[in-house]
């Protein structure tokens, strides 16, 4: 979110998949739940994110069994005040996504400049032009086989982590 010296702040957003796909990524439909205070030592981040996810995990444990919330009813009048009904609301976490800088931290794996930076297999890459290369003149962060076949891991031709 911003970076000042040795600290930076990363936002954690929960995307509401119960909304239609064309509006689910709007700011009004996103649940921003946390701002992670990230510390860095040199060029490496040294923040343990699992500590900061404890309140979120506690709330998901409550939401798994359902909580009673007053919900709005009266579905066709956007202006007038609507009436409410008590309803048990459950929420579940389907999947997680992160960008390339946050993904190694959340998965406790090596970041892309490392030799074993492919998150799906044990192929060793080599350094070329400042990045890690996995062959075929493609500078993918994952090895080519896993990059091509990431949607169906079982068809990968080599050992999977």
């Amino acid at each position: 979110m911003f970076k000042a010296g040795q600290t930076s702040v990363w936002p954690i957003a929960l995307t509401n998949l119960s909304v239609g796909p064309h509006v689910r990524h709007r700011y009004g439909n996103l649940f921003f739940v946390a701002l992670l205070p990230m510390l860095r030592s040199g060029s490496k981040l040294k923040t343990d994110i699992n500590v900061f996810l404890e309140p979120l995990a506690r709330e998901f444990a409550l939401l798994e069994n359902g909580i009673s919330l007053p919900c709005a009813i009266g579905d066709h009048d956007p202006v007038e005040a609507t009436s409410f009904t008590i309803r048990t609301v459950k929420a579940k976490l389907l999947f997680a996504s992160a960008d390339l800088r946050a993904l190694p931290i959340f998965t406790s794996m090596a970041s892309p400049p490392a030799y074993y930076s492919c998150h799906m297999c044990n192929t060793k890459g080599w350094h070329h032009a400042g990045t890690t290369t996995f062959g075929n003149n493609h500078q993918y962060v994952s090895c080519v086989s896993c990059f091509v076949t990431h949607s169906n891991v079982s068809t990968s031709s080599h050992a999977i982590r």
Partner: protein
Amino acid sequence: MKHTALYEHAAAERIRIAMARRSGKKLSRLAAMATTRVEIEQAHDATGMDFKHEDAEKLFAEHDVNDAQVDTSESDSDFHGDVQLDASMDFRDGGDADPSIIIARDDPHAASIDDGDAVGVVAMAEHAVEVGLVEQSDLQQLCERILSNLFVLKVDHVLSESVMNGLLRLLHSILVPVLPTELLDLLPRSFKAAMTIVSGLLPTVTQYVVCPNECKLFERQTAPPLCPKCGASLFSTAGSPVRQYNYFPLIERLKLWCKSKVCPSSGTHSRSSHSLTDILADLRVQAFLRSIQFASSRPQPPPDLITDVYDSDAYKWFFAGCDPNDVNVAFSVHSGEILSLKTATCFHSNFCHRSD
């Protein structure tokens, strides 16, 4: 006529008077017009009768003739048009005219206004408050409306805090000579003060104190001075925590989401109501019942086509027996400056267009 509408038009007229004074025009005729309007409103409230706007224009025209005899050197035709427009807006309701509504100009406040001083306009506003024409709650509503519009302006155009401070200072510098002190006290002078006013409507924040070595989180109220695991001090010598973690509880957000108004066309913001609570509710406008049934009511694609997460084999395998009306969320974390871009954000430029 509602008192709020009257006060808003009166405030707009006072702002125009201040602008006219800045351009060197005389105030006497303009202030007298404003006084006449208040008198008409008083008579209207006393008699309980409405007027056609033609009658109001007659009244203002008659007043113009009288003033033109006094001061013929003015050349404010532009402002004259504005006043007629306002008259047609104020006297929109139909009804019969009463020729006895013109009150004699022997009011001491009106006499002070005829001096051509801006203090007279303020005295007129205070007089209107005293006689009950404008209630104190109306001032507060106007202040809330100004604040809410500024808040929406900041949200829509991603204005910085310094810009908001400058806008509020500009408002104060403009409104000091023309608005009563009650309203000026209600208007904050900085964005920080404005946020304290609307802080009760913002999402709940839970503050945690973090161990410097990231051993554990402690709630701010019950945090010990030292970490029980590593012995590091959690607070500095000044009493502030060494590291602080702001967490916005998900259940509180779900409560707001469930209680928000139902909008049949999801994604369109309803701005018909302008109170602060409604606009903040519109900012998180959600189609709850419509959207929460999205997973079960969406059209089913062909078996070999995946259009959403609900079509995947993994979802059908994991959540086969779950209630389709559950709230499904996906966790995402992003590094970098995704929220600091003003023209296009990461979410709008990449994710939304891709999903469209």
